[in-house]
């Protein structure tokens, strides 16, 4: 009986690995020339964001979190998509090392809150 309960709990944990009951969402943001699509909708810790380079030039995006840590996406030549998993809640900014004019700010919500999901 104990084993059965533990197994059920494990199964529940596997089904709900993130966000205290909400599954991680996937978002796609498109790069057009020197502009990023506006980042819309709720972004939460644990969500995966894919950056799709549909411009005719290479980019190298990086995301700076509210705690100052940075995730680099490496160089993306045209047609390449790179992804990252959001790590830290709070204001965040996406920029490009090659093209400083590219800048997009958004807020990452705490993954443990599942309201609105």
């Amino acid at each position, binding site marked *: 009986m104990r084993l059965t309960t533990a197994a059920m709990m494990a199964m529940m944990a596997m089904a709900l690995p993130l966000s205290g009951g909400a599954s991680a969402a996937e978002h796609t943001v498109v790069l057009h020339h*020197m502009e990023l699509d506006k980042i819309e909708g709720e972004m939460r810790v644990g969500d995966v964001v894919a950056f799709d380079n549909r411009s005719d*030039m290479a980019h190298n995006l990086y995301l700076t979190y509210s705690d100052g840590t940075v995730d*680099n996406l490496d*160089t993306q030549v045209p047609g390449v998509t790179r992804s990252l998993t959001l790590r830290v809640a709070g204001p965040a900014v996406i920029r490009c*090392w*090659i*093209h*400083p004019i590219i800048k997009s700010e958004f807020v990452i919500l705490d993954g443990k809150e599942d309201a609105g999901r």
Partner: protein
Amino acid sequence: MTESRFFILLAFAIVLTVGTAAGVAPRSPVGSSIVGPVSASPGVYVPEELKVKYRRPDEIPAPPSNPLTPEKVELGKTLFFDPRLSRTGSVSCASCHHPGFDWSDGLKRGVGVTGVPLPRRTPTVLNAAWLSALMWDGRAASLEQQAVLPITAEHEMGLELDEAVANVQAIKGYAPLFEAAYPGEGIRAETMLGALASFQRTLVSGEAPFDRWIDGDEAAISEAAKRGFLVFNEAGRCSKCHSSWRFTDDSFHDIGLESEDLGRGEFAPPSVVIMQHAFKTPTLRDFRLSGPYMHDGSMASLDEVIDHYEDGGKKRPSLSPEMQAVTLSAQERADLIAYLKTLQGAPLDVTMPRLP
């Protein structure tokens, strides 16, 4: 452009005695002056949508925190030409950004108060109002931030910022200029740097033959130059980085020069390989026909520059993906050079200030 904005710009032109050559005169709205495709010469087609990408803007941008006023520009011009902002009292901003050298110095590498050659060539300050990242490595995000860097660099002007401010405070004649520019704010680092930034924002390349062609004057440039414009945008791949009306993408690229200088790589994590040896794309407007070229002044002629791009640069992991070897015929090379020469605007007619 609204009428009020036009008159503000006109006022700056009068203050500087820059006249129409300053490039701040109102322009035709985009796409209004030429309708339909344009032929450069029989057999050469130049699409209007390509030309539109190079049309000059109507207005000079300025940050809301430091809007342009004629009083700030006048103060900034005075400071720009004042050598007392340097340790030796002999080097001003204009020493390296000299009007006679298209607001650069014509040297392979600049020289400041110590006489030690600087590590990089002096870039022009023309059209700096539109820059989103300043200095060859982009370490300043605004003209206000940039203004402090040469003043406090050991081998450039060699002062602490406090010392520079104190020098200006000690010159009696500056007080009314600061009061007019920044009423009630006094002579402080912020007002000094803000005025320098304001003056530099008004340094806009004069109208070039190329601009007149873009605006519809087919006789403004030669047929060879029109062919060269197509080489610039197509076979030569120059516009991959030298884009927009300023001929720069305001971005950073390793173009494969033999140099140990890491450029923007100094400010990026080592894992961002693409930024190693990367430098800002310089504007091509009013470039010095006599050179030198590149961030390190390592090339002396346009032919040498074109040779480099034909070769494609040193192959290394940081080499920009935009750097791809090209092959130009002798005719294409000659046309490209003819085109580049059409980017020379009239010199700005800036009157020298009488220093207080």
